[in-house]
């Protein structure tokens, strides 16, 4: 079993306390995703606006028990994400901040680009987006069709469409993946401003996780300065898809932690609201409690592996993510079953959890894709079994 150190336990305690503020807002945000604008002052939301900004760009980190927290470590981030998702996963995803794009900027940005990106983030609450998926290319992202072509000496032009992009309609800036030439090495990431001519983002109505406001993005000859192309100082093999995969590996334990948080929220809802439980139900809930603990351990293990640059990190994160999305679905359905006919109508928060749980499957790779990653890690020897 993995145990947290004092420092990580401190952020866990703080996140748990902050998350209490989210529960009463969860259904409001579900009804009206724009409600996030009214809650930017909620302590946790305001922390999220700067979470993951590295120390050199963040003079004003959150201080807990006398220690500064930047949210740059994967373990502290997953511990934090679980607690916030127990409060409300929708709010966690709706909050402004650098999260997904920040990981890519850290990995592929030069000093100038980092300065530009983080100064925008620190100026005011700023939403960012990360646009990889295309309408015809979901899991097969390496075969994307969006193009980035030179237009004079110091500009490029983006053409194409992206789909299911979180927060793009409320974002000021983000990252778009596009192709400069055929083949997997021809994929590049560019920092893009949503105010650029030709950039449009139409919100899509979803069944759950409505706070995230996923969108359909159209890139109609969007001009981007050459200085915004990420990774130009890196070797060709380290740009584009390679970096995207590295970035997603770092983020995946966090997505698993959302799933865990949703599952735990459903479990805790039953404990708090069922007046009596019969023996069989108590047994089923105990079993669910154990499965939550097992998944939490696996997520922590994958997060520690990411922080240690362990080659097994990607495989462990895939295992954790695949398990988390299924457990979120199972736990929320199980919880509804504890409340009798009409539970979905009489317990709207539980209904929302069951709807939110369905979305975790697709974020950052479906269950099948995680299983394929895991298998590759296994046969390539990354996943040690001693």
């Amino acid at each position, binding site marked *: 079993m993995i145990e947290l150190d004092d420092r990580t336990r401190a952020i866990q305690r703080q996140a748990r306390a902050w998350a209490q503020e989210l529960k009463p807002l969860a259904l409001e945000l579900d009804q009206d995703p724009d409600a996030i604008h009214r809650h930017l002052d909620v302590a946790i939301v305001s922390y999220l606006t700067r979470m993951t900004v590295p120390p050199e760009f963040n003079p004003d980190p959150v201080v807990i028990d006398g220690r500064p927290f930047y949210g740059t470590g994967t373990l502290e981030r997953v511990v934090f994400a679980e607690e916030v998702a127990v409060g409300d996963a929708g709010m966690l995803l709706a909050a402004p901040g650098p999260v997904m794009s920040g990981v890519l900027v850290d990995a592929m940005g030069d000093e100038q680009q980092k300065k530009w990106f983080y100064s925008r983030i620190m100026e005011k609450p700023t939403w960012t987006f990360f646009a990889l*998926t295309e309408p*015809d290319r*979901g*899991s*097969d992202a390496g*075969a994307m069709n969006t193009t980035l072509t030179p237009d004079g000496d110091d500009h490029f032009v983006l053409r194409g469409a992206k*789909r*299911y992009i979180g927060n793009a309609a409320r974002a000021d800036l983000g990252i778009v993946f596009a192709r400069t030439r055929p083949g997997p090495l021809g994929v590049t990431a560019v920092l893009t401003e949503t105010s650029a001519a030709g950039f449009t983002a139409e919100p*899509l*109505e*979803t*069944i*759950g*996780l409505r706070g995230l406001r*996923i969108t359909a993005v159209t890139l109609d000859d969007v001009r981007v300065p050459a200085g915004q192309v990420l990774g130009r100082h890196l070797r060709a093999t380290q740009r584009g898809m390679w970096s995207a995969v590295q970035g997603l590996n770092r983020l995946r334990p966090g997505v698993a932690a959302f799933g865990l948080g949703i599952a735990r929220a459903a479990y805790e*809802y039953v404990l*708090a*609201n*069922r*007046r*009596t439980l019969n023996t069989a139900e108590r047994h089923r809930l105990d079993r669910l409690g154990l499965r939550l603990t097992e998944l939490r351990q696996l997520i922590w293990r994958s997060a520690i592996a990411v922080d240690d640059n362990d080659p097994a990190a990607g495989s462990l994160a895939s295992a954790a993510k695949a398990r988390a999305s299924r457990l979120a*679905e199972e736990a929320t*359905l199980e919880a*509804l*079953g504890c*409340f*009798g*006919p*009409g*539970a*979905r*109508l*009489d*317990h*709207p*928060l539980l209904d929302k959890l069951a*709807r939110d749980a*369905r*979305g975790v*499957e*697709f974020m950052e790779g*479906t*269950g*099948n894709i995680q*299983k*394929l990653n895991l298998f590759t890690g296994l046969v390539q020897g990354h996943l040690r079994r001693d």
Partner: protein
Amino acid sequence: MTGRTAAADAWIRYRRTARQDGLVRALTLLCETVGDGGPPRGPGGHMVVPVGVAGADAGDVVTTLTVEEGTVVALRSRAEPGVSMTPRQERAAWALGLTCLRFGLSERLLDAVLAHLGGRTVGDAKLLHQQMVKGGVAEAVIEQLEIETMLAGATPGDLDDDVLAGLNAQITETDRMLLRLLGAVSFLADGPGQVARVSELIADVHFGSARAGEHGGAA
């Protein structure tokens, strides 16, 4: 199954209509053909019906959901939940009809998966022809074959409440398998995933496990 197929024809209609014409048409047909005094409520006093089908005094609207070809409302009775006034035979007909209808919707979802993934590619191959996808589709079809076989030839009262509740849980699980196969399309409010959501709601209202004193009262 032999000898009971003729009696089952009426029930096949709900399933076929659901598969071919969708949720609202099938639910309207069921409401029109079963139940003299309007569609029955579930044991907790709730109802899910096409908009306009329930009478004005049927209860408070809890939620309104738009699906592919119409709108349904979920209502909660203002009266205390208790023993249903609907005759037993009628309740049995309604329960079987709803199960057949939900099964037809599940078949419609499978059709949507085959069409959607058949039109997508990974590399040069059809996404539908990836081995894991084929396996996933086959798993769902095994579930559907079991459910179909159980429902074949059934007339009201043949399958008791526990069996119907079990079949409905199985339909929900099968739908979830299919939704995962559809990809993010299944998470959009204007697609097949929304129909599956309403289908789950119908199961929750009519087949959710009954426990005295536990329903009602959002916490």
